[in-house]
């Protein structure tokens, strides 16, 4: 559905800043019907990639094909197949739910009976049926997001692009939104590409692609990605993590990686973890604040690949 080849994007230099490469010879494919999560630390180029995919930016080099159409040479055909949900709300808050849907339909040339049928289909899964005449500004964050998605579904897209759609939602609304999205994706056999760095959202995806510095670091199923880290790991918290890491490496000969105050021993086979934990406690009890055995989650894969913790990802503001 999406075939990206050798894509590069360089932001032109200005008086104050030098030219910056946001995407560097990227290759990425998303097959028809897949649910793909695109993740990466801030500044990894995923926002730029998103802007190129939805046609708002024109890349420096490379090609993008969407559903068989060349996005750069024939943007109208490529864009007609996709629906886009942006991170910042793209609905008019001063209009009602129904008015927003009507306006979106007008933009895509839908009217009459066609619109009538599609409206029911687009709203069927939402909690908005009895709130269609309410202004969007009066809705909760979760409901407002439903309006965004419903509006996109009106045009029956084959490809749905979502840019961190759950930002600002509470965990329950976030779960609801992602569950609904999965259900709709399966029901309509849509292809979905969604950027996110909330890893609980990625566990149910078909593919997880991780970017850093404009390059693709990984693109695989969540199971396969977790498999890369062995099965278990030992995580140590320490105040003198730096010194401790060096000692573990030299004195015990174990492969330790440090991320801030945390030391991870990732390449451990099943059953090895407990002896390692005991060994560490015996040798460095005074330096250890806490120690645990952890089953790797996607978040751990992310940390392993990008060298950043999720905390760091959340803290730094995303450059638009």
């Amino acid at each position, binding site marked *: 559905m999406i075939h990206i080849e050798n894509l*590069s994007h360089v932001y032109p230099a200005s008086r104050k800043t030098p030219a910056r490469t946001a995407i560097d010879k990227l290759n990425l494919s998303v097959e028809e019907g897949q649910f793909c999560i695109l993740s990466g630390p801030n500044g990894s180029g995923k926002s730029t990639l998103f802007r190129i995919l939805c*046609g708002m930016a024109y890349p*420096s080099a490379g090609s993008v094909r969407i559903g068989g159409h060349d996005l750069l040479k024939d943007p109208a055909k490529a864009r007609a197949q996709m629906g886009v949900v*942006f991170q910042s709300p793209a609905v008019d808050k001063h209009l009602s739910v129904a*008015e927003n849907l009507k306006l979106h339909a007008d933009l895509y040339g839908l009217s009459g009976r066609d619109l009538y049928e599609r409206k029911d289909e687009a709203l069927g899964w939402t909690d908005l049926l009895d709130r269609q005449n309410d202004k969007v500004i009066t809705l909760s964050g979760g409901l407002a997001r439903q309006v965004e998605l419903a*509006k996109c579904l009106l045009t029956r897209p084959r490809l749905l692009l979502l840019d961190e759609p759950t930002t600002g939602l509470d965990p329950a609304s976030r779960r609801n939104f992602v569950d609904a999205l999965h259900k709709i994706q399966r029901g309509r056999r849509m292809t979905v590409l969604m950027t996110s760095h909330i890893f609980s959202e990625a566990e149910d995806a078909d593919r997880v692609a991780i970017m850093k510095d404009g390059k693709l670091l990984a693109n695989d199923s969540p199971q396969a990605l977790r498999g890369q880290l062995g099965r278990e790991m030992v995580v140590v918290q320490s105040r003198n993590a730096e010194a401790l890491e060096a000692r573990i490496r030299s004195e015990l000969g174990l492969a330790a990686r440090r991320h801030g105050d945390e030391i991870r021993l990732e390449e451990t086979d099943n059953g090895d973890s407990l002896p390692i934990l005991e060994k560490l406690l015996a040798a460095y009890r005074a330096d250890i604040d806490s120690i645990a055995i952890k089953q790797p989650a996607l978040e751990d894969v992310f940390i392993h690949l990008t060298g950043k913790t999720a905390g760091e990802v959340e803290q730094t503001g995303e450059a638009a």
Partner: protein
Amino acid sequence: MIGVAFALARREFVRFMRQPQRVVGTVAQPILFWLFLGSGFNASFRAPGMEGVSYLEYFYPGVMLMMMLFASIFSSITIIEDRDAGFLQSVLVAPVSRMAIVLGKVFGGVAIAMVQTLIFTIAAPFLGLHLGLGSLVFLVMAYILSSIGFAAMGFFFAWSMRSSAGFHAIMMVFLMPLWMLSGALFPIENAPMWLHAVMSVNPVAHALVLMRGPFYMQPAQMLADSRWLLALGVTLLWSGGFLLASMARVEKRERGAAIS
């Protein structure tokens, strides 16, 4: 294309009508200007060749132009708001022509200006200005044409602005002076030489001539009047020019730099 532009313009209009403060403000403000300035200057206004014309009457078409200016400013500010809030991006990714995006905003601004100016036209008979049906048609045409020009001009400047504060600066140093030096406040003929020169090249001055015409001339007279015809030509030119320039701006997309 027109359907999309109409849908976008309807949104502008609905939003305007849902903000009662904005409606009251935009209708009341020019009327207050007109009543206060008009009455205040009435006694001291002696324009050569305009004996018998009170300042209230002189300033009347100028206030119409002011309404268009303000309608254009407000609708241009909504461009910046739309970009800020995120609404604009959904329009930009939709398969709609760039012309429809410009016309949607411009028609929205024009519709708002039309409501105001048409209401204000009711005051004409009380000034002793009598409009025949033919003149009324010409007047409405002049309204539409001039407010398209103002709205397109506002669009052109607001499109690349990222903050409404920046747009206020443009408005104060560029849009407002265009109106002040159009002959709306005082006749060109009386102005000192340098000001006269500036005013004669101001395209907006022609919009005022276009609007003043129907109050004093019959349609046939206007069509035979070279000044009025010149004003029509110039107004068509700058309105159309800013429309085209705005479309070119919307067409321009962010591009990656070439890789060396």
